[in-house]
């Protein structure tokens, strides 16, 4: 089964996305901010096939930037 990581700080949007993706038969993990997502990805404990996040997802330590390059490698 494919696994998707959703990075979304709005709980309602994240829940809606999760419902739809799960209805498509995907396994979904939701995190609230970019930093947590990055830790999850870098930690390599879990593998994801795709990640869905806002283009302007604010990384608290890197205000107003696009997802860092490190994220694209996974």
């Amino acid at each position, binding site marked *: 089964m494919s696994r998707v990581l959703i990075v979304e700080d709005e709980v*309602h*949007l994240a829940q*809606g996305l999760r419902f739809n993706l799960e209805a498509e038969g995907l396994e979904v993990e939701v995190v*609230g*901010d970019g930093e947590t997502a990055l830790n999850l990805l870098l930690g390599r404990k879990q593998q994801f096939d795709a990640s869905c996040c806002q283009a302007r997802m604010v990384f*608290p*330590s890197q205000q107003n930037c696009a997802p860092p390059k490190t994220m694209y490698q996974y």
Partner: protein
Amino acid sequence: MRITSRRKAVFFFLSFGVFLAAAAVAVGFGWIILNWEEGLKVFLGVIFFGAIATGLILNTIFLVREIRRNEQHDSFINAVTHELKTPIASIRLYLQTLQRREVDAKQRSDFYQLMLSDTDRLLGTVEQVLKAGQAGHKRATRHVAEVDFRELVRECVDVARNRHHLPPQALRFTEPSTNGTDVCVTGDAEELRTAVSNVLENAVKYSVNGVDVSVQLEISQPKTVVLRVQDRGAGIPRPELKRIFKRFYRVPMRSLNQVKGTGLGLFIVRSIARKHGGKVFAESEGEGRGTTVTLLLPRSAAS
């Protein structure tokens, strides 16, 4: 790119203004020194160069103010656009989901609940913006009357408890012991209610690790009503304590990324407090150690 080029322009014109003002002062002094012997020329020089220098300084000050206003306006547009777009996006998502998928009854009622709370948020933002617009006007309040402030606070506490599904011990209200006399404030009941519920709303909203809010109403001096709302939430770093009352200002704290807002709530509270001849201030031991917001209002003579 756009922002940096604007910064450069701002920097250039500010330094240009300062430079011109300094030049006018320097030329003026030069003129006075060169024509020291001739009283009339010195007199005219002082007036003429003085006027130019004053004009340039005033112009530069005006420029700084306008730039600040403009920045505030930008942050307002950003905050409000985000606050308007997100609930709409959420409602759309759920409507499309309901349209396209088979959803069981339980799930459907959950979705309706989520959409309803999104419309509440939307409505709240629109009301906040409208109220901030009204609060910005300095004209006198329209529906001035004697308001039973104790009753008003009690109502606001009830509303907040219901809205956030809080048990009474999570949001406690301590009433003053006044031997039956009323705690009256002269003012607009609707505005006072807005102010009190904004303060309560903040206390609950920023209680990130569980709500524990205490609301105290007191009469400190015979003529002052004191409302103290104390939470054990996120707290505020000392340098931010005054800024939080500015329009559109929100404390940039990492732990608060999840807490949404327009930065208008406390601005509205302060405007309303001032309109009623009162004031409001915040105290905090620091980040993570809770906040106390105190609202002081003049007690009306009748009570």
